């Protein structure tokens, strides 16, 4: 993977740049010793690494603004970072860039149950937002599997989702407002605690812009009352087709589960071997969860059971207790860990129309045979977000490259059937060069026009999202 050649003039000015940053931040907030900046050399995509020029950890919007003003004047690229759990290399630095981490921005600023919002600094972790309101019966809906570690900043950067987005939507559907610091150090407020602000939906574009339009320091988030209860049902089928048809029938019948998870046989076997959840050895397993009051849960599960029975499942297990529910979820939740036990793996993230599911699974199987690499599938079937896991051996020369090629083929297949390159992990550096598969030059240009407006000098996270060739003239500062 190519990255632009670091700007030598920035590298030689390192002492001066670091001194200026130290002058506006409290002691300890600027990290420039290569021993210590190593902690920031990559995010969750560990295959690619690079040490930044420096890392800064400001603790207020004003400090973020001061840092950006300096970097703007010095022409230094800035890479915003939340918790660094991005799987797309979105927070990976370049040698001539400053990492701006928001980990110290973690306060709850305001909570209003009457208006159902919470305002937090964006370094706060996703799970601790729910933690702050849980005792009062509320929760923050988007729940990426990384929620214990990932920050609201990164969730906004990537427009992250989770298992429950079929019902509750993704970050953009739960974000009411942000405080945004632009590259020149100016601070703007977008949206707020009231709905549908007039004017262009700038908040909507900032969400998912992968740290390229501005640095978000505060966020107003929608919080929701917790449902009374939730319960899963587990369904096993002898064919992917039938399982896929069952998913579509459940949805068409008017039941809206909060989650529909799909696992294929390689995945089921690996999970079962790892955590002994009692999964049957079937071709496809569905875990469908509904929520509501006891009566509502019973009535929805009865409907789902009736639909499933029409498809002659080889297994149908409705949870009857909290322990059984936990057991049903246990294998699914351990899926990535389970695969990691057996093999090195690469986790893909593409989306397809649910109706294309059987065909896509068949094609993946064929490609897997061609490349001689095994693929296991876990899948948010309600919304078409696939996570094929390609198993490979990192110590085997050439295996990683083969794995990357297979991954690219699978993602192109997603686009071909009407889906997209990434459903929740983002483009980052990982899928940057595949963007031209999904978008025409005009499509990409329209997106880059937005970057030109927010960050005319292309200093914020510049080498991400867009193929380097497509962004080259703009990055060279010839925008406008």
């Amino acid at each position, binding site marked *: 993977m190519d990255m632009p050649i670091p700007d030598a003039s920035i590298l030689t000015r390192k002492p001066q740049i670091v001194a200026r940053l130290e002058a506006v931040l409290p002691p300890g907030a600027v990290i420039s010793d290569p021993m210590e900046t190593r902690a920031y050399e990559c995010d969750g995509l560990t295959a690619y690494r690079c040490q930044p020029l420096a890392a800064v950890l400001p603790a207020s919007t004003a400090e973020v603004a001061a840092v950006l003003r300096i970097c703007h004047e010095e022409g230094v690229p800035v890479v915003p970072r939340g918790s660094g759990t991005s799987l797309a290399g979105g927070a990976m630095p370049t040698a001539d860039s400053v990492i701006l981490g928001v980990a110290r921005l973690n306060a709850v600023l305001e909570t209003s149950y009457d208006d159902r919002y919470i305002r937090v600094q964006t370094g706060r972790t996703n799970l601790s937002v729910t933690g702050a309101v849980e005792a009062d019966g509320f929760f923050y809906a988007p729940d990426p599997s990384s929620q214990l570690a990932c920050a609201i900043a990164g969730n906004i950067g990537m*427009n992250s989702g989770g298992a429950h987005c079929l019902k509750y939507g*993704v970050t953009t559907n739960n974000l009411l407002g942000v405080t945004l610091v632009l590259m020149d150090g100016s601070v703007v407020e977008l949206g707020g605690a009231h709905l549908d602000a007039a004017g262009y939906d700038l908040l909507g574009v900032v969400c998912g812009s992968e740290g390229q339009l501005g640095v978000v320091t505060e966020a107003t988030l929608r919080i929701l009352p917790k449902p009374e209860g939730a319960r899963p049902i587990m369904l096993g089928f002898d064919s992917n087709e039938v399982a896929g048809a069952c998913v579509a029938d459940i949805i068409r019948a008017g039941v809206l589960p909060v989650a529909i998870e799909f696992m294929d046989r390689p995945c089921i076997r690996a999970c079962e071997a790892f955590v002994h959840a009692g999964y049957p050895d079937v071709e496809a397993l569905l875990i469908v969860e509904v929520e509501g009051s006891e009566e509502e849960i019973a009535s929805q599960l009865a409907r789902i059971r009736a639909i499933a029975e029409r498809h002659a499942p080889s297994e149908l297990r409705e949870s009857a207790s909290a322990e059984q529910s936990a057991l049903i979820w246990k294998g699914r939740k351990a899926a990535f860990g389970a695969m990691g036990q057996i093999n090195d793996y690469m986790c893909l993230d593409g989306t397809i129309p649910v109706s294309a599911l059987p065909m896509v699974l068949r094609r993946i199987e064929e490609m897997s045979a061609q490349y001689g690499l095994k693929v296991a599938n876990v899948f948010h079937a309600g919304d078409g977000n696939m996570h094929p896991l390609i198993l490979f051996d990192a110590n085997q020369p050439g295996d990683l490259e083969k794995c990357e090629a297979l991954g690219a083929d699978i993602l192109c297949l997603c686009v071909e059937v009407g889906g997209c390159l990434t459903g929740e992990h983002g483009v980052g550096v990982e899928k940057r060069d595949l963007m031209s598969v999904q978008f025409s030059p005009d499509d990409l240009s329209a997106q880059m026009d937005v970057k030109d407006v927010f960050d005319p000098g292309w200093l914020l996270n510049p080498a991400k999202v867009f193929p380097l060739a497509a962004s080259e003239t703009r990055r060279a500062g010839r925008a406008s």
Partner: protein
Amino acid sequence: MMRPETEAALAECVRGARGPLCITGGGTRQALGNPVTGEALSVAGLSGITLYDPGALTLVAQAGTPLAEVEEALAAEGQMLPFEPMDHRAVLGTSGAPTVGGMVACNVSGPRRIQAGACRDSLIGIRFVNGAGAVIRNGGRVMKNVTGYDLVKLLAGSHGTLGVLTEVAFKVLPRPETCLALRIGGLDDAGAVAAMTVALGSPCEANGLVHLSGPAETWIRLEGFADALKVRAGKLAALLKTRCGVSAEIVEAGPARAAFEGFRDLAWAAGRPGDLWRLSVRPSDGPALAARLRAAGAGEIVFDWGGGLLWALAPEGTDLRPALAGPGHATLLRAGPETRRALGAFQPEAPAIAAISKALRARFDPRGILNPGRMG
């Protein structure tokens, strides 16, 4: 008037334009927004549902498709547009067929917005022609998509000033089997917002909460499967009794549905004189805002979205914006051209935001020919 039949022909019209274009869908909005003068470019020729996949909860339609056609197709499969778009013909006294493109361009939502999100939240993909005549695609037809920037959101509510929409894709939802409403009489604004807040803070999933201050009637809608709904309504009524000391009457599906259609389309304001304002604030600010609006001359006030959306009738030419006095925004929905020119249809933006908006317009529409002036 230009009325192209294909996206390519529409792009050609834009490329060939010598001056400002006034984009029309169903043309039901002629009296709305800041006035635009220009040659009419109708999108009505681009019509038809291009893809409907009920099992995947997605629908794609050309921008000029009448909204009614989309709603019928969805109803036939027991599905719906979650945001419950209003039909504003009665209140504006216009005729014609509202289109899905016009709905998206204005980000039109109804009462269910408070629970299910706005039009922009259901919009998952678009195709549009920018001011230079290039065809741009963004988003797609799948619900989860973080591939590149979300221009879908940017174009929703841009009132035709960044591009002419040619195709729109939605995430749809199953239509609830039935509905019920709780009706409470005699509450003042503060009491009504308190009751609606209790409902919204409970797990009952109330998805329509409207208070009419004139007759002092508060309505809370619940939707779902018939069997479970009765139980839920009973629980909510009991909760309102203990928390707010109010008694609610249960209204059956038929009259409840009719009532909410009326609220959605502002039936109460149809045919009545005066300017019509739409104000969005935090629900807890609603009652105090209503008091200030009355002091400023507003007559009837209706609360939607649990108290966060206020509709106010005011004597012609009255500026209600100063009453906001806090975060929120006031839009002039219906008024004569004089008033619209004097007060502006939209809430003025902070200078930094206005600068970004202007720069975006310059990028997407370098010649300034798409609905110039509509958004200021």
